[in-house]
């Protein structure tokens, strides 16, 4: 006796959260059944393995049919075929678009192209995430990217509107799209200590302050691309390190203000010029795409690492960066105060987030 056909269709579509997770994680029906057996469900319910197999198959088939709709979540809400309570719809969407930290760290900042897709095998092996799941996550990134790429308005809002994600997840996707668009390097060894959350935090600050959208909310792509004019203007900051008098004055202002307040005062005093040169040079180089991509590498190399090697506590870093940015306002010969604030305000936030072990 073999089962040729075995289906269950409810007027309200039944969604089993556990099976959904297994499906999202890319397990085959057989593996999923084995995992469910291991979870002790048979003992709890008194069911047989055959029942479990049939149940799992059925859920998988349902998810497979729903997947097409999940690619465009508003469709899931308006379709008539599957009657699903709104709370369940939200759960389906949210889980479908959720991603693994390990995976996103591998692809963050990479071009979402066929080439990258080919490397998913390696990522799968490296992270232990099934290839199927990697593909889903990658395709999600790409799909969101394609949809919001050329849109007006806030990136987060666009993602939220077109994919009906929670605020948290929409922000994450905005960061992923922003990174993919600007191709920031995140995979270097010295950046491995950073989490996706660190990058997402920086992305949000940069979107808020450094993109076109920060000055003009009526342009296409406003949250995706950095403000080219702003990057060009950053060259003007060069004077802060090129003019020796200005640099000395800046140093003395910072040192005076921080004397006695900083645990690592002497180290700071000794390193001031190096650090300042590092931060300003990062700014002046941002006209080149290559250097934009290396932004995080540079920040870590030029600032995070030197401070860390001197064992600066985070509180000292904060005091220093505050004073370092503020003191520029007292430099009479420096005319680009607004520019400096736009640059340093964001950078300070980023650096503080990046500064950890």
């Amino acid at each position, binding site marked *: *006796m073999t089962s040729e056909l075995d289906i269950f269709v409810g007027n309200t579509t039944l969604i089993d959260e556990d099976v959904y997770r297994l499906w999202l994680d890319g397990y085959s029906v057989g593996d999923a059944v084995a995992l469910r057996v291991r979870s002790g469900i048979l003992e709890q319910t008194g069911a047989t393995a055959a029942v479990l197999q049939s149940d799992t198959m059925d859920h998988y088939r349902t998810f497979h*049919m729903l997947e097409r709709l999940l690619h465009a979540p508003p469709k899931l809400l308006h379709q008539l075929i*599957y009657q699903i309570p709104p709370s369940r719809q939200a759960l389906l969407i949210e889980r479908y678009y959720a991603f693994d930290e390990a995976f996103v760290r591998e692809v963050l900042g990479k071009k979402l192209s066929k080439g990258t897709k080919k490397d998913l095998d390696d990522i799968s092996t490296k992270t232990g995430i099934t290839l199927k799941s990697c593909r889903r996550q990658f395709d999600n990134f790409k799909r969101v990217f394609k949809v919001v790429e050329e849109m007006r308005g806030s990136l987060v809002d666009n993602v939220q509107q077109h994919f009906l994600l929670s605020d948290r997840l929409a922000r994450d996707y905005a960061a992923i799209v922003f990174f993919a668009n600007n191709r920031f390097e995140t995979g270097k060894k010295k950046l491995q200590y950073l989490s996706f959350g660190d990058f997402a935090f920086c992305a949000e600050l940069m979107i808020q302050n450094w993109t076109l959208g920060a000055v003009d909310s009526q342009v296409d792509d406003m949250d995706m691309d950095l403000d080219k004019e702003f990057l060009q203007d950053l060259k003007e900051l060069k004077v802060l390190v090129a003019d020796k008098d200005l640099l000395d004055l800046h140093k003395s202002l910072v040192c005076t203000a921080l004397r006695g307040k900083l645990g690592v005062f002497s180290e700071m005093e000794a390193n001031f010029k190096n650090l300042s040169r590092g931060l300003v040079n990062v700014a002046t180089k941002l006209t080149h795409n290559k250097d934009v991509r290396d932004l995080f590498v540079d920040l870590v190399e030029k600032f995070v690492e030197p401070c860390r090697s001197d064992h600066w506590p985070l509180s000292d870093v904060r005091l220093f960066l505050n004073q370092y940015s503020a003191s520029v306002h007292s430099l009479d010969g420096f005319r680009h105060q607004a520019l400096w604030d736009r640059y340093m305000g964001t950078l300070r936030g980023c650096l503080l987030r990046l500064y950890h072990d």
Partner: protein
Amino acid sequence: MPGKLKVKIVAGRHLPVMDRASDLTDAFVEVKFGNTTFKTDVYPKSLNPQWNSEWFKFEVDDEDLQDEPLQITVLDHDTYSANDAIGKVYIDIDPLLYSEAATVISGWFPIYDTIHGIRGEINVVVKVDLFNDLNRFRQSSCGVKFFCTTSIPKCYRAVIIHGFVEELVVNEDPEYQWIDRIRTPRASNEARQRLISLMSGELQRKIGLKVLEMRGNAVVGYLQCFDLEGESGLVVRAIGTACTLDKLSSPAAFLPACNSPSKEMKEIPFNEDPNPNTHSSGPSTPLKNQTYSFSPSKSYSRQSSSSDTDLSLTPKTGMGSGSAGKEGGPFKALLRQQTQSALEQREFPFFTLTAFPPGFLVHVGGVVSARSVKLLDRIHNPDEPETRDAWWAEIRQEIKSHAKALGCHAVVGYSESTSICEEVCILSASGTAAVLNPRFLQDGTVEGCLEQRLEENLPAGCGFCHIPYDELNMPFPAHLTYCYNCRKQKVPDVLFTTIDLPTDATVIGKGCLIQARLCRLKKKAQAEANATAISNLLPFMEYEVHTQLMNKLKLKGMNALFGLRIQITVGENMLMGLASATGVYLAALPTPGGIQIAGKTPNDGSYEQHISHMQKKINDTIAKNKELYEINPPEISEEIIGSPIPEPRQRSRLLRSQSESSDEVTELDLSHGKKDAFVLEIDDTDAMEDVHSLLTDVPPPSGFYSCNTEIMPGINNWTSEIQMFTSVRVIRLSSLNLTNHALNKNFNDLCENLLKSLYFKLRSMIPCCLCHVNFTVSLPEDELIQVTVTAVAITFDKNQALQTTKAHVEKSLQRASTDNEELLQFPLELCSDSLPSHPFPPAKEHLESASSNSGIPAAQRDRCSSWIELIKLKAQTIRRGSIKTTVTVEKTSPMGEGNFRNRSAAPCANSTVGVVKMTPLSFIPGAKITKYLGIINMFFIRETTSLREEGGVSGFLHAFIAEVFAMVRAHVAALGGNAVVSYIMKQCVFMENPNKNQAQCLINVSGDAVVFARESELEVVSTQQPAANCQPACTGGEVTT
């Protein structure tokens, strides 16, 4: 020109991409009704076109309005080649033709293609302007309401229940026409869908005419079926019960009044005529009589002038207004006489209803059934209905005579079915022989009815169990005892019926689903030889099915079956029998005895030991089941009442025989000769296996109950969490092991596994009951068995049940003494009153765990005390001369009204698409049906030539059934409704050809579209009925945004 149909095409959405180059579609719409077609403009390059068309107007006869569906076709415009069809929508406009149903159909309909399935949606608005045309020779029957529900619909009251109506139409099946060889599968499927739609429209119109002729205004328990006979044609047939219904329309009817229609009867002046059409047709009646015969089965040429039957019939049912009901000197004999005379005038005193107004059902005799085997290729004139009419008439006649043999003059819970394999067709009919109270059958004033009822003094809760036949002249050997409830009348020891459990019946404990499953191999044969072989097998199958049912019933410790449905399916090389019923313990019937096992070789010691081991197992099972289903019959009651019991219990056990179930009326003596049926003789291995299989039926996991009737006896506190589902399984038998025994085992496993899967899938709804479990078996091919199950799972509140049984008894006791009128409530209504949802289960779990410690003993204590209360109460009630008690402990809504006021409505309120509930039951737990919008009767074909790509047979059928649900919901929403009740999937014919990568499936579903309002919402707006009415309609309307 009695009608103007107006259609507006508003917009489309989610259309498929038809032009690969642009990834867009240039869509336009053709609107067709009858032979008239209108077109919208092409809306270029969009997947979400906004046509916003003008009103397309069709001026048509109301006859066409009833027959024809509105056909909407969405196409993709193509400049150079033929336009490609995207898909179609068929809209049945029948609901717009009754005065009080829907007034407009407006909403998003899935665009359906028989090859691709649903492809986007279209927003359509449909209206009908009807002009009354009084003097015309009427061909149409606009205004007759149709209900699938097999009871008097909520919010209506039955003035008269006229009786049986049936009709049958035949046509050539397009699939078998010569043209089918050259046209595309799509064209063929569409031709079939359209034809069936047309035929069911025609059928409904013809039945409507018969109803008007009988002076009725509605058909209740309408059941329409298709017989795909193949070469010989396509038959659409329907049966139903004609009624005159009166709408309970006062605002008060919503809350208390709806609960007590009998009270309502007094208050509402009888001037409320829901349907002018009925009466306006008066003058033309004589004319009609000559054209349409009430009983086509007798007058085979239906177009010819009347046979004598209708002439003799019409005056009795129609004209005899107000006579019999009023004058009733309601002594029992007279009552019976009256009923008899009222019913005997009818050719077929059949009723498709399974639940009745209180007092309607007097006695129940038992199940009557008849089957006959016919050869389709012998139909003389296949395109005409005569032959089939004759076949059915024959069977109905047989049923009628069986009922008579049981001393009954009517058959209730009546249904008909067929099973076709190649050229062989088995026709089956079954029902429950019964004695009815005549007052609903004739035109009488309400007061008359009431008085009659009050004087009748029928013992409550057990009257229907009393035998209708003569004790000294029993139609079959049965064992009778005095009723355990009233001690006055005789009752049988077991009762089988096809109806729902009467609401006033006194039941002990809970019920459960009982199934008998059976396969019989049959040699492949042709024509007559085949028919003979089947005819020869049928009695044996009936016998075995019956024995199985009886044994399983005993094993459960119960004594009555309700909702019995025996399905015999014929295949190429086998016959399958599947009987489903709900077993209960009726307090009025004697306690069932155990099952004794006897071995054939008593000398063998080890064998003896084995037998005694089995016996012990059986006894244990019975004990366990009694505990499980809470069957604790009150032994003490005998002493309390002290009434004489004719035979001591022991004796009754010894004498027990296979009584009551009347299946013998199929000319088969099921009484096992004179032998005691409940001594199971184990004389060979087969018998041994049978006993084993009895014991292997696993009870549902704890927290689950199941039944195939509307409601589960013993559970009353439903929450509003319901889940209707359809599950289909097909197994392939390996041809090697084809013995009867292996076959039985396979079939048994298939059904058991299916049930187990359901329990597992629905485990999140525990505590829960599967209601109206409906199994259908078909044999699509030689080695394939297909089982389709449709049912609804309803969560109930366990804790509430325990607390409130007691509270309720107190409450009702109070009521009984204070307010006599309150006693006239419909308990069924009360059941539907139960609580609105807990949005999510956690709360429930909490309650459950809280109750688990003390719960069960408390329940038993409650039960005992309540039982005594019940008896006292009953005594009181009888003295007071009231006709019935509402106090069946198991049956009433426990909720204090204050309780549900605080709870919020369903959590889905903010949904984009309005939620449409579907249920095979006639009610929605926790809600009140405020309006019936019309019947939903839909037929779909789906075909694929890329089976693998669509996920194989399972993927294909899963998607199709989901689509069918979606289309039903969309139609209901467009009518302004938010639920389908009495939903049934009447047919699911699945054929596959995996080698060709093809499959085809036909599905036919029906139900009643309704508007319901949650109890809680109702209370808020109870003073303003219109508000309540429009509220759900509005939510339905939001779908369109």
